[in-house]
């Protein structure tokens, strides 16, 4: 299989890349890790007139914490850069837990965090972790930069909020105000498969009280499911007692919109969501007890 014909551009600056996108009037597509786009080109699900390869643009491959603990992830940070990251484990545990579960180790050497969020696959792992953690996508276009809240960025299946002449240059994820706790659990049929169901939970703890709780789901709906309000409603201002955990798991499971398919029945997937929420929260509760 091979793609249909396209013009290939490999700009070496953001300004040049944006100018090409702008001139294309919507006929161009950005190529980042290519781990979703190249398969789509080969299957001819996508047939852009121009491909704008951003891999030669310097300055996009870094991720770092700034002084207040905000995590910045450049557009060319690969999945494996986060898997081997030495900076995110304590500050952004939800992302750290997901990193080794995205695709397989070889796909992870190329695929990018930002590209995955842009792709907005309902089964995508990174979009779920980011919706649970909060944060923004920084978009750059002909008129400069704007920050888009991730909850307004991932709009639907394979749809994001970028204009045709904008590039997502960075993801920005805030730190916890207290202690960051979190987890990511994913059920897959085999390593490297997309999620049958997966759950991202992110907690901002003040002592043993939940200051803010975030949650999002992948694989159990037509888009990334935003369960922030459900989990926060159940846990905000409370401690992680078995009763509160149970209530949170029920509230989140009610948000899932699973469909029966070859990966499992709708009931089964909803049950997985509930189990995963309570497992992540119980693990956090146990680790708190140990630390106390």
């Amino acid at each position, binding site marked *: *299989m*091979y*793609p*249909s*014909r*396209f*013009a*290939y551009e*490999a700009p070496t600056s953001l300004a040049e890349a944006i100018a090409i996108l702008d001139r294309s009037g919507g006929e161009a597509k950005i*190529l980042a890790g*290519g*781990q979703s786009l*190249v*398969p789509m*080109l*080969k299957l001819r699900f996508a047939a852009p007139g121009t*491909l704008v*390869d951003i*891999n030669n643009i310097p300055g996009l491959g870094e991720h770092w914490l700034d002084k207040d603990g905000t995590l910045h992830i450049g557009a060319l940070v690969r999945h*494996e850069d986060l898997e081997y990251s030495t900076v995110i484990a304590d500050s952004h545990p939800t992302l750290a837990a997901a990193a080794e579960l995205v*695709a*397989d*180790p*070889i*796909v992870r*050497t*190329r695929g990018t965090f930002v590209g995955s969020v842009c792709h907005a696959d309902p089964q995508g792992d990174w979009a779920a972790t980011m919706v649970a953690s909060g944060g923004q996508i920084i978009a750059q276009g002909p008129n400069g930069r704007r920050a888009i809240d991730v909850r307004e960025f991932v709009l639907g299946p394979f749809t994001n909020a970028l204009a045709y002449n904008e590039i997502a240059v960075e993801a920005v994820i805030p730190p916890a105000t207290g202690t960051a706790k979190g987890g990511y659990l994913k059920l897959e049929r085999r*390593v*490297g498969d997309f999620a049958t169901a997966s759950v991202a939970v992110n907690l901002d703890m003040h002592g043993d009280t939940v200051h803010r709780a975030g949650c999002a789901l992948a694989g159990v709906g037509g888009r990334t499911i935003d369960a922030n309000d459900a989990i926060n409603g159940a846990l905000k201002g409370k401690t992680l007692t078995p009763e509160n955990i149970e209530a949170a798991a029920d509230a989140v499971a009610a948000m899932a919109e699973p469909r029966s398919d070859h990966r499992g029945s709708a009931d089964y997937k909803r049950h997985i969501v509930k189990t995963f929420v309570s497992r992540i929260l119980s693990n956090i509760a146990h680790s708190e007890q140990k630390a106390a």
Partner: protein
Amino acid sequence: MTSLYNEVAADPGADTPTRRVSITVNGEQRTVDIEPRLLLAHLLRQGLGLTGTHTGCDTTNCGACTVLFDGRPIKSCTMLAVQADGHDVETVEGMATASELHPVQEGFKECHGLQCGFCTPGMMLASKALLERNPNPTEDDVRWALSGNLCRCTGYQNIVKSVLWAAEKMRAENGEEA
């Protein structure tokens, strides 16, 4: 298997836009004029005659087409050949020297790490990349690092043994040199 290379041949004709790219393949600089939609796997196999890189699934799942791109493993059926311009690509043909196998290749030979051999080039390159990063992997580390490479024959047991054998040999060699 149809590939762009067979259809447009080496000379795609005057009205087809091509791009001149220079890629270091197994240490040798190769300059080619290619259509941007040509996949790296097809350039390697049909264009450069390096048929050690296999295409199994052609859908980014099996890892048979794995090559090293600037030292890291990638699936060459999922990268455009033009993207390799200015980069370093290593295929299975680059692993051995004229007189000596790479320890990973020796390991596969010693421990019977292959049956039909179709997955083997990809397995060996992914293993080489693992050992460069982690010279002393556990069995779990090996299984994890090779989880993007599928084998329909061996049941993986002997592949894992082969990589552990190679790791030990490489550690011994490096110890001797130090």
